[in-house]
């Protein structure tokens, strides 16, 4: 009987004094990694998968173009559209948009601008090649086909 009593005494409750510390640690992790979404997506985004991904060094050089079917099909129809910043644009506006993005960079970095093309996997090559043609016209020739990781076999 004495043995049992001893055992009961040994099982003290876990100290919760360090719980706030643990929570704070998690909090700081998420605070540091978080990027508040600057814009609402107006188009569907299901990125394709690829295995040979590269990471870019300088984030400031990247500008994003979103391509996909509009979410609000009643307003914008079902054909793939291009979103730059907060608005849907047409292919004709791309050159103007690229020049605006280039103006945000310093002069030395302008020719290194990279367009991250975030296109939905359902999109056909037609609109993509139109975009690429306009990007060539605007002399923004570095294109990053944004995609998610696929395991290599």
């Amino acid at each position: 009987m004495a043995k049992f009593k001893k055992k009961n005494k040994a099982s003290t409750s876990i100290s919760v004094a360090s719980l706030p510390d643990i929570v704070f640690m998690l909090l700081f992790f998420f605070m540091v990694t978080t990027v508040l979404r600057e814009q609402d997506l107006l188009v569907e985004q299901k990125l394709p998968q690829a295995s040979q991904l590269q990471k870019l060094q300088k984030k400031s050089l990247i500008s994003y173009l979103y391509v996909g079917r509009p979410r609000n099909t009643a307003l914008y129809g079902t054909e793939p559209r291009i979103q730059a910043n907060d608005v849907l644009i047409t292919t004709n506006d791309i050159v103007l948009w690229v020049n605006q993005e280039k103006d945000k960079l310093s002069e030395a970095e302008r020719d290194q601008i990279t367009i991250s093309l975030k296109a939905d996997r359902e999109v056909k090559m037609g609109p993509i090649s139109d975009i690429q043609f306009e990007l060539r016209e605007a002399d923004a020739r570095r294109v990053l086909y944004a995609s998610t990781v696929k395991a290599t076999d």
Partner: protein
Amino acid sequence: MASRMKKEAPEIPSGSMADIAFLLLIFFLVTTTIASDRGILNILPPKVDPNVPPPDIQLNERNIFNIRVNMNDQLMVENDYRDNTEGLSQEVKEFILNFGAPNEEAQALYNSLPPSLKALARMDPESSDHPMSGGAVVSIKTDRGTGYDTYLEVLDLVKRAYFEIYAERVGLTADEYRALSGDNPGEEELRKRGSADIPMAISIAEPDK
């Protein structure tokens, strides 16, 4: 007086500290999106100047590896029909490293390759002459109706062939080679040594209108 002040020294209750921290934690958990700026990099050709006629480049048919994708996402690789991309990466690798008719420089390049890559050289006169500039080119042509994901899959496989060759030359795996950032001189040197004399010659043709 002094004793009274001491008695009233307030103490902030720290019991609810954890709750506050939890609240903040949950807020950041919900709003967080771990940023991913990863993808396949492609350099587009310069725009066509209407005043300058396009350079007349004569490439022999044997130096071009043709991949065509139609609107039903079916493939035509070197005039062979197929409906999946199985083994494409290996074929591209063999095409690049064929060394069918190497000149003097290409022969020196061949001699510098590690044995595992030398083994891939079939010296087939019907295939590419050498992998240096002016030699092997991989051409991808799509239709306007081709799915973007199929195009990316093909481009991904061709890039994989190149990256595997580069990695093999410096004794790394392809994943390690791609992760080289070029931030420090050592990594930059490795990257240069891997890709030296074998440019990534991927031509992406405009789809027919």
